[in-house]
């Protein structure tokens, strides 16, 4: 009996007596180091990091980080993160999830941002001698904070002892696996308890604050002027977001937004509308309007791909059809028709033309399933581009003006409001692109509403049922072909809607804008990537995915020819580590991560309220 127990002891999972950290430092000093390091990081943000203004962003000045001619945003960011890592430790209420895991991420964020900046300074200026004391303080402070945070105790995951009969190589692999499990465990957090129900005005205030923060972060990101700053921004945002997620704040926020869906939608719309007012010129409103066009088309594609499960690789053609149709009735001198319709009619023509194309292409192709559908839609997308290219009067009928496209599309005028001129609203100058930004935002809102309402209805359920199991859906009385055709045509019409505005924003519509893959979004590959990256079947997913996919190539000019390579690599990594997308639909998250639950552990009770989220 006794021997039996000891034998059993060996095979039982190895458990630590008391939880310890990754680094062998006692809990007290470790916590002090983390807190002290955080505080020092804050202080270092107020010091000069380098002596010369040669490094972009001017990190030479002592004193308060803001209010200076240059943009010392590095410091503002590290200050925020330093404060966050300090605050998160102190305020239990802020961290319903795992405070220490959040602290580790915050420390990691501060550390990588600071060290990345310092490395960039050193390489740019040629040597460590270019660092001022502030830089050294930042380096040491963030390192201390990170060391302290890593030494904080955590619940060690179960590991299994090495089998002494294994070969040396097997034993090494086993030890490495154990190490990796423990390391991952250090950054894991428990699912936070569901949030208490607060008075609804407080919940709404929290949502408003979150949206305002989102606007600030986005405005800052879009305004970053050089590569290093943007990379620093990406690092801070990624780790900062991870820290907030580990602290359980993200889960709480999404619970609140689920409760106030209309308020959130209105708030997000207002926050986005506030964006042009934060800008002093039209430079970034340009990016804003292109992101909106891209995001709106991605959201339209999400109906086709995310809800109905139809993989459409030629979706950008519908944007093109809308843009061409609108440009031809815009009064452009290059248009074969000498018509100038008012905007409301042009938008009907654009969306209508795309709708008709959607039905024409969908009717024969939607009889196919899966991969075959993807290939055929890819073909139709290219056919559209080639037809537009060749309808130049020489190799085909004279309709689209060939590769020159339809140029000099006049600016829109709605009720006497000329979109080409700069207007002053509330004392803020609102330029041409900002005008179009507002118009496009309205279209995005329409598409969001269409997505939400169609998704949460009889027809939306039929789409999801077809995606889940087409045979069973047919046996439940769903006319599969008809329902799929509706999804396809609706997606096409929404893309056409966006195309109408795009034609006017870009002045010129050419076939080359509507390729399958290109370095500039929107193109079919990037649209699909935005949907998959953001999260299939959600509203906010494609919007976030599109913003990221537009901003990153746009801001990281140094990637140059390697853009598509980096894009592919990023997609592979994402599919490996987060297949459900950045903002997952609740059900997809379960689908992909159910296998990671401990055996015997029941999946968390899933209460789903709505199709979208």
């Amino acid at each position, binding site marked *: 009996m006794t021997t039996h127990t000891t034998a059993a002891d060996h095979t039982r999972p190895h458990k630590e007596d008391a939880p310890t950290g990754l680094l062998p430092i006692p809990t007290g000093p470790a916590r002090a180091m983390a807190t002290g390091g955080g505080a020092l990081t804050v202080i270092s943000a107020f010091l000069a990091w380098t002596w010369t203004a040669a490094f972009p962003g001017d990190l030479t000045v002592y004193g308060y980080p803001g209010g200076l001619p240059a943009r010392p945003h590095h410091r503002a960011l590290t200050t925020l993160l330093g404060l966050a890592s300090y605050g998160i430790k102190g305020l239990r209420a802020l961290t319903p999830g795992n405070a220490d895991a959040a602290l580790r991420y915050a420390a990691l964020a501060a550390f990588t941002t600071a060290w990345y900046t310092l490395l960039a300074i050193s390489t740019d200026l040629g040597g460590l001698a270019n660092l001022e004391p502030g830089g050294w303080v930042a380096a040491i402070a963030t390192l201390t904070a990170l060391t302290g945070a890593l030494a904080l105790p955590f619940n060690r995951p179960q590991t299994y002892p090495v089998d002494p009969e294994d070969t040396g190589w097997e034993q090494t692999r086993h030890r490495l696996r154990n190490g990796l499990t423990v390391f991952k465990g250090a950054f894991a957090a428990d699912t936070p308890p569901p949030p208490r129900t607060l008075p609804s005005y407080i919940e709404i205030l929290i949502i408003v604050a979150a949206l305002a923060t989102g606007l600030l972060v986005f405005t800052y990101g879009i305004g970053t002027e050089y590569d290093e700053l943007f990379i620093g921004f990406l690092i801070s945002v990624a780790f900062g977001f991870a820290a907030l997620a580990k602290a359980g704040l993200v889960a709480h926020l999404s619970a609140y937004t689920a409760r106030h869906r209309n308020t959130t939608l209105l708030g997000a719309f207002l926050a986005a509308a506030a964006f042009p007012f934060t800008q002093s010129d039209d430079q970034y409103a340009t990016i804003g309007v292109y992101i909106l066009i891209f995001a709106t088309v991605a959201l339209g594609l999400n109906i086709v791909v995310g809800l109905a499960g139809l993989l459409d690789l030629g979706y950008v053609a519908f944007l093109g059809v809308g843009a061409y149709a609108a440009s031809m009735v815009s009064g452009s001198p290059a248009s074969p028709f000498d018509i100038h319709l008012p905007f409301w009619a042009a938008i009907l023509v654009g969306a209508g033309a795309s709708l008709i194309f959607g039905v024409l292409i969908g009717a024969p192709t939607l009889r196919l399933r899966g991969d075959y559908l993807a290939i055929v839609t890819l073909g139709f997308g290219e056919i559209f581009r080639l037809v537009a290219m060749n309808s130049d009067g020489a190799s085909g009928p004279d309709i689209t003006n060939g590769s020159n496209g339809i140029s000099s599309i006049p600016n829109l005028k709605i009720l006497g409001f000329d979109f080409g001129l700069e207007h002053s609203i509330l004392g803020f100058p609102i330029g041409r692109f900002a005008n179009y930004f507002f118009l496009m935002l309205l279209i995005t809102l329409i598409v969001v509403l269409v997505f939400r309402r169609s998704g949460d209805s*009889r027809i939306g359920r039929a789409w*999801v049922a077809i995606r889940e199991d087409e045979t069973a859906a047919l046996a439940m*009385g769903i006319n599969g072909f008809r329902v799929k055709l509706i999804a396809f045509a609706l997606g096409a019409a929404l893309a056409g809607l966006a195309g109408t505005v795009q034609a006017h924003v870009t002045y010129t519509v050419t076939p080359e804008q509507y390729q399958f893959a290109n370095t500039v979004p929107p193109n079919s590959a990037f649209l699909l990537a935005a949907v998959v990256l953001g999260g299939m079947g959600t509203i906010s997913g494609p919007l976030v995915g599109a913003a990221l996919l537009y901003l990153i190539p746009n801001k990281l000019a140094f990637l140059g020819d390697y853009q598509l390579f980096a894009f592919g690599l990023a997609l592979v990594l994402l599919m490996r580590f987060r297949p459900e997308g950045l903002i997952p639909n609740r059900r997809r998250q379960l689908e992909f991560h159910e296998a990671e639950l401990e055996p015997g552990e029941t999946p968390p009770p899933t209460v789903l309220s709505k199709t979208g989220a």
Partner: protein
Amino acid sequence: MTTDTTTAGQAPDTPAGQTVLDARNVTMRFGGLTAVRSVDLTVNSGEIVGLIGPNGAGKTTFFNCLTGLYTPTEGEVRYKGAILPAKSFKVTAAGIARTFQNIRLFANMTVLENVLVGRHTRTKEGLWSALLRGPGFHRAEAASKARAMELLEFVGLADKAEHLSRNLPYGEQRKLEIARALASEPGLLLLDEPTAGMNPQETRATEELVFAIRDMGIAVLVIEHDMRFIFNLCDRVAVLVQGEKLVEGSSETVQQDDRVIAAYLGEPFEENN
């Protein structure tokens, strides 16, 4: 044939004893293989009919002919007097609902949503109605939800309405599939091995459920391997062997038929050596 086949004009709500399903001379060939050969079968309202047979006898193929997944090579299938359309969604709209041998729920939809999908043919709201959200839309959605909850109550899954259907235990997934099929307000329910993989208690519960469905006025046709289940349940049993109907009759008749025993257990060994 132990039943009279009255194919006179049908009232919408069929009184007991009227023919709901009338399959005549149904033959299904796949290339040179004849999976089902001239099978006749009638199901009357208020009746539970069983279809048994050894593996590969063509039971599921016959089922698929009845539900529009296959178009029979020869013969015709009438539902309440009208020849069945060739598309499975039209068959469901006509009033025949089915479950599947391997459970085919919409795994990533909630239990309630699964049943709501079953309501598809009995509701009409299209895309415009969903986008404009008039009062008619809300009324129809509320009515659908109420009916779906009623059905979930009926099969005993009402408290799990918001769970993902993939997370239900096996037996409850079977029940949900039945609830989903009932949601299309069928006149005839086809159950393809409803107790496969169930323990005796669950089988008994399913038996009760099928009786309750019969009492709702819905005719039931069941394929099953569990003989005890089938003989307890069915008013009439048809035996399918190698694509042909061998015997049809009451449980006792079929149980005592030598040919059925032979089909399942083989011929007695008679040589002496």
